[in-house]
């Protein structure tokens, strides 16, 4: 049981870490990419991925005084 908890904690720390915004943003980035590729908008997909990544990083930072 101790090892199962340790294993689960390892992957939680790996994926969620200090900010769940990053994990959610990463998943959202891929979902948007899949939707654009399936719609045939390949160039939009190529641009959307880095833009979503940048937006995710910015959203995870403290932006208020």
């Amino acid at each position, binding site marked *: 049981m101790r090892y199962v908890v340790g294993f689960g904690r390892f992957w939680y720390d790996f994926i969620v*870490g200090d900010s769940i915004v990053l994990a959610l943003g990463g998943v959202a980035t891929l979902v948007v990419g899949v939707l654009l590729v*399936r719609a045939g908008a*390949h160039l939009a*997909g*190529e641009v959307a*991925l880095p833009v979503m990544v940048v937006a995710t990083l910015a959203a*995870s930072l403290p932006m208020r005084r």
Partner: protein
Amino acid sequence: MSGSDLLIVLAAFLASAVEAVEALTIVLAVGLTNGWRTSLLGAAAGSAVLAIVVIALGPALVRIVPIEGLQVLIGALLLIFGLQWVRKAILRATGRKGLHDEAAIFAAEVAALRQGPGVGPDLDWTGFVVSFKGVFLEGLEVAFIVLTFGANRDGAFGLSALGAVAAFVLVAIVGAVVHRPLTRVPENTIKFSVGLMLIAFGTFWAGEGIGVEWTLQDWMIPLLAILYTGVAFTLVQWLKRNIPAKGVVGGVSA
């Protein structure tokens, strides 16, 4: 060796060298931040699993292994993990998070090792997994390259494998030479750079896996790294200027 033989060796060498450099980048990054034992053990484990998969499946590898699925999974994990590192590096650079406290980290590591699975006091599982995945995925791509070039005609497989082995040896020598000077770079700078590289690799691989056709192919990775570096430095400057830190949160940062 005929001209066409030489072309097969050269093509396999160049294509494999690109993948080997990508794997080396990740192994070096993990070595510099999580320790060389962790990084090399991860790389060795990745190579061993890869060898088992390649030997077991042989030429059927190209048909059986879902490379796109692996790219999405590994790319997404690297992307999220890299974002965590860059976020922490930005918080440190703007005074919102404490710089590395070795004594406190050691105490936290010992506590974690007592609770969860571990194989030694200086092996970091996170670094091990990142190094393992980088070597496994890139190695798999090299195997695909060797098999693809090798399928061109009879006898081409050996030539293709020769090109790949030559690329691997050359890149390994380069890695052994450059790893020492890199250790002199300040720790937060290294972690910042590593995080940015992981995001670039993660975006590229996950994108390839879901079907994005990168216009510049593998050249997109350094371009993404440059883009993310620019954004990260802009965010640091903006935060410093507009939202001054109230104080350091948390004394320990991994």
